[in-house]
């Protein structure tokens, strides 16, 4: 709690620092003179060559009209065909109001220049009309965007092949396709003073726990910052414990995974301009689950689940155990084994910790090099790393054979963990454990384990225990933890998410012909 209190104090002081920018300057009203308005616009947007101000006469209004927008942020065909053309081609001075002429869905009035600024920058087209103290905002967004593709980081075998893109509205639409339910509510906030970002909270109103939602909202409202460019930045500003290596929110690019979490009673946050969606509250175990688990047969899925948890243990502790056993507690392993290990270490001049560090760091470098490189060069890195270094380093007597095996096994294990953030956390912990093992042997590893457990069980995500359902133990959730029991056996939503309405299905147990 102290951490949170401290954070709150820090946030409060950040609020003071930014307060000069958020003092409401009395907004200038839109005047009824068109030329005044245009002058005002020109003083507001100096050095803005992409601002288009088109004045024209239209039959149905007395005086002229000005159409204002930023090129590139609007859909040109929509502006030309649905706004300009009807206004220009209107011949008769019929009774039709201007609203009836604009063939665009969303049109609304705005009255001051604050709003004008925001709408223009958001990609709307504005119509200023001589003699009216208001402007019409016409929604004509249309900025350059990417097509919907398979998400790269979370490829799925059997799940949907749609990933989020950089437009918040599209992402919300993708989620809505999975949840056509009026109880799925959206709360919108604008975060960032200099470059406001639309942040939308999506949740099932009759399922989510109001306290969890409130906590999430409060934290988002407290943010005072220039701008957030990415979901990751938002996550860092709202998480419970900033010093933990573990991700405290789930980040995903998959709409089906978001939908499944919302159905479990969690809150999803769509950040405009970012292809990742934040989901909270997250639990430690949820980082080991994957949408594919639910579309494979449950025995297979269970096996894969167990594999992942084993991979977590191996990736965290294996090099540490090796170091401990080789340099400290060699009496634990049988004589024959220690002899063969000794034989392979015969020519190696380094202590086991250094040997392990060399190999681990090499591997991390190779991985990091591969990430940023284009695919063809990436393959070369793989070959150079895998074959040349792996083989040569042993032959040169720098690293022992067994160490290469240990490191390779560890690396493979860390790739099995389906969530990238969790896998990265495990990588960091590994070095900590290696250090402890090199200093204190098995005792060091156990102390490290104790600290890890202590940290995991005291960590919280949005005030919900992170270790749940392991600590506090909630046996009802264990159906979907190490095992993935048949779907029809999970009649209730997981208790770990803290929901107010927990029933999610009736009795669906398949009965053969016999009954």
């Amino acid at each position, binding site marked *: 709690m*102290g951490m949170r209190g401290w954070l709150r104090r820090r946030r409060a002081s950040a609020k003071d620092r930014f307060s000069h920018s958020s003092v409401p300057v009395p907004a200038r009203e839109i005047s009824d003179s068109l030329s005044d308005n245009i002058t005002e616009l020109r003083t507001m947007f100096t050095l803005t060559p992409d601002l288009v101000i088109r004045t024209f006469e239209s039959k149905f209004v007395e005086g002229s009209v000005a159409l204002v927008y930023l090129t590139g942020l609007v859909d040109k065909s929509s502006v030309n065909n649905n706004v300009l053309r009807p206004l220009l081609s209107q011949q008769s001075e019929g009774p039709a109001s201007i609203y009836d002429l604009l063939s665009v869905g969303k049109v609304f009035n705005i009255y001051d220049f604050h709003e004008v600024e925001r709408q223009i920058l958001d990609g709307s087209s504005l119509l200023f009309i001589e003699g009216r103290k208001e402007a019409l905002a016409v929604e004509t967004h249309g900025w350059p965007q990417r097509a919907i593709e398979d998400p790269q980081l979370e490829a799925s075998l059997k799940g949907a092949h749609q990933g989020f893109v950089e437009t918040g509205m599209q992402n919300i639409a993708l989620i809505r396709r999975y949840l056509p339910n009026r109880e799925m509510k959206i709360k919108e906030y604008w975060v960032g003073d200099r470059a406001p970002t639309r942040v939308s909270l999506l949740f099932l109103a009759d399922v989510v726990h109001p306290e969890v939602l409130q906590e999430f909202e409060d934290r988002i409202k407290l943010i005072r910052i220039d701008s957030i460019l990415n979901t990751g930045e938002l996550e860092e500003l709202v998480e419970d414990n900033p010093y933990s290596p573990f991700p405290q929110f789930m980040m995903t690019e998959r709409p089906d995974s978001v939908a499944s979490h919302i159905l479990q009673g969690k809150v999803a946050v769509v950040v405009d301009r970012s292809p990742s969606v934040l989901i909270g509250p997250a639990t430690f175990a949820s980082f080991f689950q994957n949408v594919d688990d639910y579309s494979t047969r449950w025995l297979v899925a269970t096996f894969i689940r167990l594999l992942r948890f084993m991979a977590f243990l191996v990736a965290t502790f294996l090099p540490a155990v090796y170091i401990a056993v080789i340099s400290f*507690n060699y*009496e*634990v*392993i*049988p004589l024959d*084994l220690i002899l063969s290990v000794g034989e392979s270490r015969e020519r190696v001049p380094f202590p086991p910790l250094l040997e392990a560090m060399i190999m681990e760091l090499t591997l991390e470098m190779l991985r990091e090099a591969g990430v940023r490189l284009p695919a063809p060069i990436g393959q070369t890195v793989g070959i150079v790393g895998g074959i040349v270094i792996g083989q040569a380093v042993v032959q040169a007597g720098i690293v022992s054979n067994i160490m290469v095996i240990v490191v390779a096994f560890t690396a493979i294990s860390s790739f099995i963990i389906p969530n990238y953030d969790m896998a990265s956390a495990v990588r960091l912990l590994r070095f900590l454990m290696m250090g402890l093992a090199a200093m*204190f*042997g*098995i*005792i*060091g*590893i*156990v*102390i490290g384990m*104790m*600290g890890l*457990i*202590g*940290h995991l*069980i*005291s960590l919280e995500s949005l005030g919900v*225990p992170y*270790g749940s359902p*392991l*600590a*506090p*133990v909630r046996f009802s959730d264990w159906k979907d933890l190490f095992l993935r029991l048949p779907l029809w056996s999970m009649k209730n939503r997981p208790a770990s998410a803290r929901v107010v309405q927990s029933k999610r299905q009736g009795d669906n147990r398949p009965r053969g012909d016999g009954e």
Partner: protein
Amino acid sequence: MKKYAFNELTVLQYVFFIHGTQVGIGVLSMPRELAEEAGTDGWISILIGWVCATVASLLIVNIMKRYPGKTIVDLIPVFFGKWLGMVVSALVACYCALAAMTVIANGIGIVNVWILSQTPGYVLAILTVIPTYMVVQGGLRVLGRYAELIFYLTLWMPIVVFSILPYSNWLHLLPVLKDGWMPVFSATKSTILSFLGFELAFFLYPFLQRKQYASLGIVVANTLSMLIFMHITVFSFSFFSPDEITQYTWPTLNLWKVIEYRFLERIDIIFLAFYLFFLSTTTLPYMYFTVFTTSQMVGSADHRKHLFILMILIVVGAWLYTPTFIDLKKWSEVWSMTGMVGGYIIPVIWWLAIQLFRRGKGGQKG
């Protein structure tokens, strides 16, 4: 009104919390202590000790039922007034601190002897202090989760002991009561002290979510501990000969030493390392209630400042002074004596006082 609503414990957490506190350093030396006093009849003493502990813990739960929403620390000022209350509270804190220190110092001592003979004690103290702080700073809620999780994580340990079954000789246990009842009773003194830990119910009761299970829970906790003690003792008795067992300081460790697999030798080292988990479930609660008491005394709700000071004191203390095993024995004796008073004598007197008071009041309550 509900001062402790934030820190509630579930029934299982309450059970494992008390069970974890009871099973600590004693398990390592218990078979020897019993064998010295009562020979291979020592296991009967465990049963007697279990009955005594269960009675005492039921008395405590019954006493605390009369003061809903209050821990012992809240009650002390009510009974003793402000200044005397301070003194009594300080004594309670000292008792908890002594218990925690004894277990930590013993743990460090054993690790020093058995595994890390070159490492100075204060380095091990630093090592133990770090995870301790990480858990205890979270308060009782986190401690409850910890106790529960550790119970499940260490379940494999008693099961592995079964692998010495082929080598055990059950005739060692016969004849039952070879020297009569007297040695059994004299050994009971040490067993009832092994069950110490249930006295934390004085603190725990108001934190319990469903109070109707308080009595049942504490009986289950005592029974679990009894089963563990019984398991280890009976297996040691059947494995070592009755004379051999008294020669080992920690027969339990020697018992593990003989277990051997084709891929793993010297399991005792792994066992002792994991035994630190058992020790932690004893020290952490005592540590928590030490700082809980002191911070309540000065009237602050945040126990972390005191915890931090205590941690530094432990490290500095370990740096300045390394207790010998004879010192540790003395500490244990002092803990046992105070534990006898706090865990057995006070509940009985208190309970009798309540009964007398009730009778004195006459038929008002029926």
